[in-house]
């Protein structure tokens, strides 16, 4: 394992020190491993909190700031944070208007956030609502399984719902919007390589040079299928087709994200975006806005994911609203 670290067990603490050094506009609670905005939540504004395992940067800490999150809880690499962290963030970020927890659908994340919401409501009476994202079409949805994973839509949701919270919408309205955004988005990911979790010291899985994994999540895990490596046009097709088969994106504008998994250079991400855009045009899907880059990553995994979100005028207006975070910044 070759990594820019001091020691595997110190990765998270050391990284949070770096975040604090780089972003004086943020407040970092090193004990509870929470990143807050530098200024307290405005009175009457619903607070948005997310969190999850580390290793997905810039998600979530990179999305704390004006127009997006109020706080992000960082767990160990690929391990959800603990309920006491989320409870603390909930207590601190609440301005009296309530708190929305944005949770990616993973067993651990859901259980820990549930416990946190129960604890926060019982102890402090803070009103907590939550939305669980589950946009990954690689996973068959069924009541008998853990359900679809929450992936790329989480990024778009934090932006859109963050803008709505800045507008002063109340907790019920913000929660309703979050539910609608999640329902309107779908994602599909692929990997050329696995990644190396620092505490494990070696790649999570081995894969020959002529093979790739289709249908991966964001934890360096194998995907649904291992198939022969193909050209970018074919890979784009293998990602876009299952998304379009799952939801009709031809009825209105969409926001498209071509997301890197952390170990793929931007030149390849743009190349892939070009292929995806071609396919979408052929399928009659109109891209109104796009994002190309590393937004929800899987450490040093090479690969990418495609996320499409059906976006009406309301979503587009909120998408275009000012945002000022380490990971997304425009309109300022």
């Amino acid at each position: 394992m070759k990594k820019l670290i001091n020691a595997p067990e110190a990765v998270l603490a050391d990284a949070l020190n770096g975040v604090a050094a780089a972003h004086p506009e943020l407040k970092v609670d090193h004990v509870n491993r929470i990143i807050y905005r530098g200024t307290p939540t405005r009175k009457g504004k619903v607070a948005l909190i997310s969190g999850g395992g580390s290793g997905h940067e810039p998600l979530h800490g990179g999305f704390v700031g004006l127009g997006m999150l109020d706080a992000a809880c960082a767990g160990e690499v690929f391990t959800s944070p603990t309920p006491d962290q989320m409870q603390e963030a909930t207590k601190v970020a609440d301005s009296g208007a309530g708190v929305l927890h944005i949770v990616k659908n993973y067993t651990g994340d859901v259980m820990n956030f549930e416990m946190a919401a129960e604890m926060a409501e019982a102890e402090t009476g803070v009103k907590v609502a939550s939305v669980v994202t589950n946009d990954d079409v690689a996973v068959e949805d069924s009541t008998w399984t853990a359900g679809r994973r929450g992936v790329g839509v989480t990024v778009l949701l934090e932006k859109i719902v963050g803008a709505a919270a800045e507008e002063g919408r109340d907790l019920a309205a913000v929660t309703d919007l979050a539910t609608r955004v999640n329902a309107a988005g779908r994602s599909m990911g692929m990997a050329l390589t696995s990644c190396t979790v620092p505490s494990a010291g070696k790649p999570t899985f081995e894969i020959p040079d002529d093979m790739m994994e289709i249908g991966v999540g964001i934890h360096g895990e194998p995907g649904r299928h291992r198939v022969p490596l193909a050209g970018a046009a074919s890979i784009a097709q293998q990602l876009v087709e299952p998304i379009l088969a799952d939801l009709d994106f031809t009825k209105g504008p969409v926001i498209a994200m071509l997301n890197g998994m952390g170990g793929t250079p931007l030149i390849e991400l743009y190349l892939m975006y070009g292929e995806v855009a071609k396919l979408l045009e052929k399928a009659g899907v109109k891209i109104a806005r796009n994002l190309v880059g590393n937004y929800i990553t899987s450490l040093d995994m090479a690969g990418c994911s495609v996320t499409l979100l059906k976006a009406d005028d309301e979503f587009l207006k909120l998408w275009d609203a000012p945002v000022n975070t380490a990971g997304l910044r425009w309109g300022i």
Partner: protein
Amino acid sequence: MTAGTASLDQLTDWLSRFRDLVTEQQSYLTELDSAIGDADHGSNMTRGMNAVMEKIGAGGAGAVDELFKSVGMTLVTSVGGASGPLYGTFFLRIGMTAGAATALDGTALSAAMRAGLEGVVARGKAEAGDKTMFDAMAPALDAFDASLAAGDDLAAASSAAFTAAVAGRDATEPLTARKGRASYLGERSAGHLDPGATSTALLFEALAGALAKG
């Protein structure tokens, strides 16, 4: 019935042995988790049980409920992931059910662990055959009860529980996961032992060790 009792020292020894076993098997647990999960089960369990032993090593727990509530809360607040809330809930419920006793007889220990299992099910919503820790824990408790009912003492009952947990663990290998991160692999999860069931077998190995006769 001369089943004997598990003293506070023996129950503490259970936890200490569990810590030693997950530490010893850390790489193996992580390896299993790499195959069908996200490669952190070994390090998470080791971090959690080390935090537990640091907390209770300072002593001070005067009764079973105090001990296990402290163990449960420490796991919930130090582990994260799925194993934090699940193992944490297991021990919290043991504490809540056992009450302020200073020792547990077989019936009381069984009732406490049953409550722990119910807590795990309530939190994780797992059923038999989902390829989770449930598949090792449920048969272990059944074997524990059957052994006690047959008139065995705690040493024999906990040894029977360990044997059943190992069999339950091994039976997860061909299963397709329906809960937890392994479920995302669908049929590709078959052919691997479940990491959670594997650490649960260690939990009962630790119990059998702590309650073994003299």
